[in-house]
């Protein structure tokens, strides 16, 4: 997972990209077999230990989910992100606002 969190004039803009196939379960591969569903379902973002965002996501999010959000904040603020997928894998990362 890559995170970029930049503050400008009291507003922090965050970009997150998570490497993930995000398969809906409706797609067929070259042999014509259905590729099983495997997608990011939940995301939790906290700011300096406090809840900021709770996300529920489905299979309509593109492969390698690229998410952007904003909040009122300052340089040095600590972001903690945790995503879980439909196969119970977890993806966590932290970043400081620059």
């Amino acid at each position, binding site marked *: 997972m890559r995170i970029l969190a930049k503050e400008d004039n009291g*507003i922090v803009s965050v970009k997150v990209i998570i490497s993930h196939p995000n*398969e*809906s379960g*409706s*797609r067929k591969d070259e042999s014509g077999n259905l590729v099983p569903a495997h997608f990011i*379902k*939940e995301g*939790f973002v*906290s*700011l300096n*230990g*406090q*809840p*900021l*965002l*709770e*996300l*529920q*996501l*489905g*299979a*309509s*999010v*593109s*492969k390698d*989910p*690229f*998410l*952007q*959000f*904003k*909040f*009122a*904040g300052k340089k040095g603020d600590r972001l*903690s992100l*945790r995503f*879980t997928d439909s196969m*119970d*894998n*977890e*993806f*966590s990362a*932290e970043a400081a606002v620059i």
Partner: protein
Amino acid sequence: MNRTALSGSAGVQMHVVTTILLNNMKRRAFIEKSLLSAALLFIRPAGLVAAWNGKSFQQVSIEQAFLNVLGTKTPEKTNRITLTAPAVASDSSAVPVEINTDIKADMLYLFVEKNLTPLVFSCSLHGGSIPWFALNIKMKESSLLYGVVREGGKYYAASVHVDVLAQAC
């Protein structure tokens, strides 16, 4: 390996702990987690967090999806939500969408009218979150997109149409 159905945030938390050693991502995260366990508990306070809501992500019509997710088939149309998406999607597997509003929303949603599962995502906003979100989505076919926000328990929506030239998944 762990296929047990999850119910409730307590069940998910325990499941997280028990599966923590089972793959590389989790093994790396385990070290972070043992240091951040207090923060982790804070990230998921009971009552604040709902487990992934399967009913919201069912393959139903857009009207039924509104009903399942919002509790109403008719969120109020507003021009205070700006939904930005290309008029024609060059790649229907990755259509960039942005939702922005000056409504003091505590929830944001994006729906695609003709996707098998109309709800794309929902987001609960806390603290200093700003009701603005952008992401790339998949679209099955030319369709309306609905950006919906909740304020004071009431739902407001705006829509834009996106044309899709070739079908994605």
